[in-house]
């Protein structure tokens, strides 16, 4: 590997700076959540899990939305990078929704004395994990990169469209949520201003983490595409070099 190619693989300075800012902001968010914000009237210090749990859950849903958006873009204009972005966002969505489930379980064990509740949002997140796993299974079964991108884009769009219905059905089916202090649609905010502020700050940090990984993954995807293009360059014959065959 030449120094030039090694240089290409290295993360640019501004991304390292961004990562440092995220770590610092994460520390601030942890301070806000663990020290600065008051304990909850009903749940005491357990409410502090919520700051990490809910912020991650929100960004997870945003990530699925972006997956479908990039998938639709890929179907529309067939740019390889759109597929890379869709996958990157789906990976983050899977990671965040898995963390949401773990967070939900740690939250419901002390509050509801059970690891699993059929709470609408937790059920929805579990379904989202199942839907995303399906997306990745489909991808793993198709070798041709273009066809893989197009078929999985169809899956991503179907998956994203199902989330509102899944939410509605799960919400109506059984809502066991202990505190309806803040709901997914943002209505009925009844928490203390410090608590809301802490939650929004942590959501902002989670959003920065998502964005950082997206940018990094897309950067890697672009490098992969470049390498692939260089590898393929000698195989293809430039148009009209051999002359147009006319019959």
């Amino acid at each position, binding site marked *: 590997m030449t120094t030039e190619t090694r240089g290409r693989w290295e993360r640019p300075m501004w991304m390292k700076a961004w990562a440092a800012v995220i770590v610092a902001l994460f520390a601030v968010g942890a301070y806000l959540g663990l020290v600065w914000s008051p304990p909850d009237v009903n749940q005491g210090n357990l409410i502090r899990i919520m700051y990490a749990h809910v912020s991650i859950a929100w960004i997870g849903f945003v990530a699925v939305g972006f997956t479908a958006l990039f998938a639709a873009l890929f179907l529309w204009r067939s740019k390889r990078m759109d597929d890379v972005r869709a996958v990157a966002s789906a990976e983050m969505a899977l990671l965040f929704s898995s963390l949401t489930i773990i967070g939900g379980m740690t939250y419901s064990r002390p509050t509801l004395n059970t690891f699993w509740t059929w709470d609408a949002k937790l059920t929805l997140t579990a379904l989202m994990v199942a839907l995303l796993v399906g997306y990745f299974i489909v991808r793993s079964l198709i*070798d*041709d*990169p*273009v066809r893989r991108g197009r078929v999985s884009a169809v899956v991503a769009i179907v998956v994203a469209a199902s989330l509102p219905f899944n939410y509605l059905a799960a919400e109506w089916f059984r809502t066991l949520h202990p505190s309806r202090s803040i709901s997914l649609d943002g209505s009925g905010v009844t928490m203390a201003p410090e608590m809301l502020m802490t939650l929004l700050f942590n959501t902002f940090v989670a959003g920065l983490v998502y964005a950082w990984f997206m940018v990094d993954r897309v950067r890697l995807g672009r490098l992969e595409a470049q390498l692939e293009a260089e590898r*393929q360059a000698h*195989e*293809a*014959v*430039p*148009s*009209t*070099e*051999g*002359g*147009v*065959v*006319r*019959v």
Partner: protein
Amino acid sequence: MPTDPHADPAPPPVTTPAIALRGVQRRYGRHLVLRGLDLEVAPGRVVALHGSNGAGKTTLLRLLATRLRPSAGEALVYGHDVIREGHLARGRLATIAVFGGSYGTLTARENLHLATALRGAPTDALDEALGRVGLERVADHLVRTFSSGMRKRLGLARLLLARADLWLLDEPHAALDADGQALVDTLVHEARAAGTTVLMATHETERSFDLADAVLRIDDGLLSRVDAVPT
């Protein structure tokens, strides 16, 4: 633009070519099957396509039939891009696949009616077409009871009924008896007389030199023109 020294008197440039390929590539995973094809076929020509197994003949035919997307470049059928205007391209072409492409649990007549009606072509000549390919006695039998040669004949009947301007034939002589092969030749001659363009992938080397106006060969992912039976 470089010209092919073997080209016949060039077709007038004002007419839209029946087939136009510009830098067409097709990749399966990492394997580049078509490496960059540039081709123009004038309307009404009968062109044979040679090449060893896996050379990319079927890939090219399926690509022109709008069933495969080119990985790069563009392919046009009577001026219609096979991707952006696939439905217009399909309106001009008809195909016959290696295995005939008929439904086993439908009768021969039902298969013909389905394929013809889906094109919007008139369905009043089904019996005539069945007679032409020698299937009139089994018109109402299920296709799953047919031999591979009979299925191929049914594919030929569908081709006749399609009234298309471009025939894409994948090994039309394969699986047919001597009569059937002669029938294919007759149909191709008639098509030429009617101004239909024909592109057929075939391993029938000598027969295709008699039948076709031009013979192309796909080798190593590239197209070239062949001028005589290789000795």
